[in-house]
């Protein structure tokens, strides 16, 4: 919202004060002011009122005229002018030789062969409107040579406040409310509004008006006639223009002016079209032509202003074309009303049409303003057009009143909340300046919230704190640390585990951490051949590509693998992210935090890659939990899983997730030759596993004995089990040193290391253990290779 310092100064005397400093203070205490401040009129100098004494056609040009003008300096000046509206006796704005308009300094120069000693200016050239159809027509009775800046408020400081920062301040949507803030900041009095006394018209007939819907809170109206003027005074038009509005005609300008001044939107109807004013909603949708000529679809939730059953305006948003003021309008009905803010906002969204009026109504305007706005309107109108006649009494229905808000607090509360001591006088003066009624009894304050702050903004003690402290100025605060007792802070296990998992995967295994979105990427899944599994969906996704929430990170990660195939021949990705796996506790999403790892390689065999991944997981489990992993073959249930070698990962009896190879269809879609393996584990389940901790063993001082034995076996597992079942503390480690396949099948060579803490082992006792293991395996049909 653009604001004029001149306009603000109508209501508070700021003379002698640094305006820029005040604007900055306003930004820090009230609402955000945009960086650029406009110094209107500063680029114009030496423009005076001049009268055109003669007009002759230019002999060489159809458009140009040769003028003699009186600029009040006792002589006639020759000027060549191209404006179509020149006439003898007209007063206009004249830039004398030496005058400045923007970057240009006026100098004598010939135009099409005739000398010109100055320039007649349009309003646009003066920067006070966008009218460039002709030169300015000055109707004020002032002597030639008077500076235009002496008759018009061309010099002004205009600044813009970010509308977002006014969301909660309905009182700041007009200059008067802004002036109240400046008055409080500058510690100067706020002037009262000048308005007419509407009770003078109490004997006139009432308007036939009725609120038939509770969405209308208050409706005030008045009829006036005998308006003879159509053009607004220049100063009014300048202010409107500086504040971003175009001058239209006197009535439209006045309603806009009132809105920018008080924040109260108003509307003027042709009285013939609103003989029976009714405010209501309709049962059925229909279309309605607003005054901008657009047909709009109105539904049963939209509040309408009607003439009996004919809609004439969308309440709080825009008037209708059919009830607009037209040339032969003699009597007009002024509307000043308030409506339910939520309803206006919703209608605005439905209509996709936001107006200056609706923007204000959405903020919960103060219903106390409606009558004052009419009184002010009549005052301004009669000042401009003294023949205007009020022909109805004020007709006012006030059906919804906000509660009176009283707030009690004491000084101690303010000091405690602020953390600094603020004197009682400061509290008292600040609140009074902002329009609060305040009573102070020793240290106890009793405050009555003014109506313009009581519609939603100020309701409780904390709100009062804000009023006091913001005017006090946060820059003026003495700041100090909180004093709090000392207690240990324990880190959450899951968080610690997560950090350590990341460290192991990055530092030891050179994986890259990625983030992917929480939803299944419809297009990318389809391109890879990954099925989108049924899962909970977003109801308002703007894009079908992001509709279904993922139940696993693996597929989104495969999309990222695809994206990176050109990056390197070998890489691994991991992500710790969220998935939804079914519902819990009634109808809530069962959200899981998962770790997903994918390895991609064009140089290694799929088996090597699979083992690398298995070892990564084993290291993670061993390092963080000192636990071993176990695996159990399982059936593929997802489109991206290879049916073979898919294993459930177990740890300490708990199921953690799966490790597997990517299905060949998808794998080939990612890269024809690469091996791709994946694993996904549930981070919370992992975190809940007990840390088995380090079990220290004193190293034996006696020599170890190494025994290698080869078995013909497809898998290591039974061998490992047999060794484990031997339950012998002398076996210190078991490793696979070799595997090979010949005509007899697959052989696995196992190395067992034996040692005793207190003595040297004998070959006989070790062989006895080994023989028992061999016998156990042979009983299962697994033979030792001789």
């Amino acid at each position, binding site marked *: 919202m653009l604001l004029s310092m001149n306009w603000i100064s109508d209501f508070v005397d700021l003379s002698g004060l640094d305006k820029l400093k005040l604007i900055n203070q306003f930004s820090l205490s009230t609402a955000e002011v945009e960086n650029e401040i406009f110094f209107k009129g500063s680029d114009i100098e030496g423009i005076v009122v001049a009268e055109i004494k003669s007009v002759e056609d230019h002999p060489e040009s159809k458009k140009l005229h040769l003028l003699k003008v009186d600029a009040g300096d006792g002589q006639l000046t020759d000027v060549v002018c191209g404006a179509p509206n020149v006439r003898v006796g007209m007063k206009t704005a004249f830039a004398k030789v030496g005058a400045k308009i923007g970057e240009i300094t006026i100098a004598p120069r010939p135009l099409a062969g005739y000398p010109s000693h100055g320039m007649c200016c349009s309003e646009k050239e003066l920067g006070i409107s966008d009218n460039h159809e002709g030169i300015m027509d000055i109707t004020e009775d002032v002597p030639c040579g008077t500076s235009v800046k002496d008759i018009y408020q061309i010099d002004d400081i205009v600044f813009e406040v970010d509308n977002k920062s006014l969301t909660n301040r309905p009182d700041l949507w007009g200059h008067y409310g802004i002036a109240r803030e400046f008055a409080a900041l500058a510690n100067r009095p706020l002037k009262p509004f000048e308005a007419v006394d509407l009770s003078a018209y109490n004997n006139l007939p009432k308007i036939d008006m009725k609120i038939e819907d509770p969405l209308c809170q208050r409706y005030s109206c008045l009829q006036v006639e005998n308006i003879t003027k159509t053009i607004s005074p220049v100063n009014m038009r300048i202010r409107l223009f500086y504040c971003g509005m175009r001058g239209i005609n006197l009535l439209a300008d006045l309603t806009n002016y009132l809105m920018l001044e008080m924040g109260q939107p108003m509307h003027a109807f042709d009285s013939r079209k609103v003989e029976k004013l009714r405010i209501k909603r309709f049962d059925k949708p229909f279309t309605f032509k607003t005054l901008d000529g657009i047909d709009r679809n109105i539904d049963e939730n939209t509040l309408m202003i009607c003439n009996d059953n004919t809609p004439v305006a969308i309440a709080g948003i825009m008037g209708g074309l059919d009830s607009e003021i037209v040339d032969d309008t003699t009597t007009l009905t002024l509307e000043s009303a308030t409506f339910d803010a939520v309803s206006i906002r919703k209608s605005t969204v439905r209509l996709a049409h936001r107006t200056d009026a609706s923007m204000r109504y959405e903020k919960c305007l103060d219903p106390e303003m409606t009558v004052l706005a009419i009184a002010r309107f009549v005052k301004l109108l009669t000042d401009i057009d003294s023949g205007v006649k009020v022909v109805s009494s004020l007709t006012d229905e006030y059906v919804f009143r906000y509660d009176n808000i009283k707030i009690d607090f004491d000084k101690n509360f303010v000091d405690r909340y602020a953390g*600094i001591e603020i004197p009682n006088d400061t509290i008292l003066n600040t609140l009074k300046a902002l329009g609060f009624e305040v009573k102070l009894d020793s240290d106890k304050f009793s405050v009555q919230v003014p109506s313009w702050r009581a519609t939603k903004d100020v309701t409780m003690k904390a709100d009062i704190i*804000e009023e006091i402290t913001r005017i006090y100025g946060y820059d003026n605060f003495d700041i100090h640390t909180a004093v709090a*007792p000392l207690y240990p*802070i324990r*880190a959450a296990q899951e*968080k610690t585990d997560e950090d350590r998992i*990341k460290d192991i995967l990055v530092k030891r295994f050179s994986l890259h951490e*990625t*983030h992917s979105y929480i939803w299944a990427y419809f297009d990318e899944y389809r391109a890879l051949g990954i099925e989108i599994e049924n899962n909970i969906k977003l109801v308002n996704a703007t894009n079908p590509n992001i509709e279904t929430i993922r139940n696993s990170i693996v597929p989104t990660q495969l999309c990222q693998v695809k994206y990176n195939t050109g990056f390197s021949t070998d890489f691994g990705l991991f992500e710790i992210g969220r998935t939804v796996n079914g519902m819990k506790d009634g109808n*809530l999403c069962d959200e899981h935090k998962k770790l997903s790892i994918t390895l991609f390689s064009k140089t290694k065999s799929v088996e090597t890659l699979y083992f690398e991944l298995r070892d990564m997981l084993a290291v993670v489990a061993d390092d963080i939990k000192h636990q071993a992993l176990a695996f159990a073959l399982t059936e593929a249930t997802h489109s991206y899983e290879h049916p073979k070698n898919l294993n459930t990962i177990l740890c300490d009896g708990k199921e953690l997730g799966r490790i597997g190879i990517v299905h060949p269809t998808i794998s080939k879609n990612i890269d024809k030759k690469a091996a791709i393996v994946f694993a996904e584990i549930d981070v919370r389940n992992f975190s809940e596993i007990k840390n088995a901790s380090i079990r220290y063993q004193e190293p034996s001082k006696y020599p170890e004995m190494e025994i290698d034995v080869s078995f013909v076996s497809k898998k290591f597992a039974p061998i490992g089990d047999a060794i484990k079942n031997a339950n012998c503390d002398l076996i210190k480690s078991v490793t696979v040193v070799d595997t090979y396949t010949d005509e007899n099948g697959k052989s696995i060579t196992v190395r067992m290391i034996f040692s005793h803490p207190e003595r040297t082992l004998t070959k006989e006792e070790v062989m006895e253990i080994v023989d028992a293991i061999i016998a156990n395996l042979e009983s299962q049909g697994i033979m030792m290779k001789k």
Partner: protein
Amino acid sequence: MSEKTTTMKQEFLSKLASVSDMASLDALRVEYLGKNGLITGLLKEMKNLSVEEKKTFGQEVNILKTEATDAIAAKIEEMKAKEIKAEINSMPDIDISTPANLSRGSYHPITLVQRECEQIFKSMGFHIEDYSEIVTDYECFEALNIPKHHPARDMQDTYYLENGQLLKSHTSAAQNAIYKKYKDALINDGVPIKAIFPGRCFRNEATDANHENTFFQMEGVMVDKDISISNLIFFMKTMLSEVFKKDIKVRLRPGFFPFVEPGFELDINCLICGGEGCPSCKHSGWLELCPCGMIHPEVLKAGGIDPEEYTGFAFGLGLTRLVMMRYGVKDIRDLNSGSLKVLTQFTDDE
């Protein structure tokens, strides 16, 4: 010395001088000093000599034996030294000027900046909390004093799910649960609530280089008796100076957020120009950084904390924004792209 020993010594030394490898040296040793070697053989000739001669000759042979043994040992040392020298000479020159192989893993930049912030907060005694991404309307709005018809609830801003839950639109959605988690310790034992909760947030909006529907925030709260606006400003200044690793000036402006009262927009002096004014701060010298405020009494109440007795402050930091500021990331979408060209650059940064 007898002629025999002298001749043998000369012969031995001349042979030794011509030996050039270990095998010949060993052969020479066996030839002279072995069980049946030439020097040992000399002793066998002693039986024909007188006692006196035996004594003299025996001594001579023994001296010769010692001399030969020492000479061989010296020759071995000499040959070993030669070998080492040859090995040194054969070592190729390594070209250390070739580029280093930096292949290694990488963290997501969010992890790096988040960890750094977490360290700062840990050092100030804050708990680090984790929270779900899918939350209820109550958690995200109702408990935060965001009434039913507040624009923040509009469909266009928040992603809603079929079951009425939603993707959390701000980390503040965790506030209620955190108050409930720690309120007993606060009320019964006087342990202040100090917690931060980093997390991923979602907004239903079109994406471009500056807008993402998925981004990270970090929220923090502190609740105790007598927490004040003055404490809040002090804390924010201290904390942000740590985050940016230099003394930061802060200024507060009123800002409206339903879950704080008073609420503020916090500006810091521009990091590029230091407050002088430059294009990056639009010549204002200030940079709008984060919202903060005193926790709204209704929000404390919803968390089971009596606002008459306790007060607190809350603040939000845009982690994604901090990442972009720190590393100069121009396109916010790069962070979720999974692109290794982007991500592999973010190795550890502590």
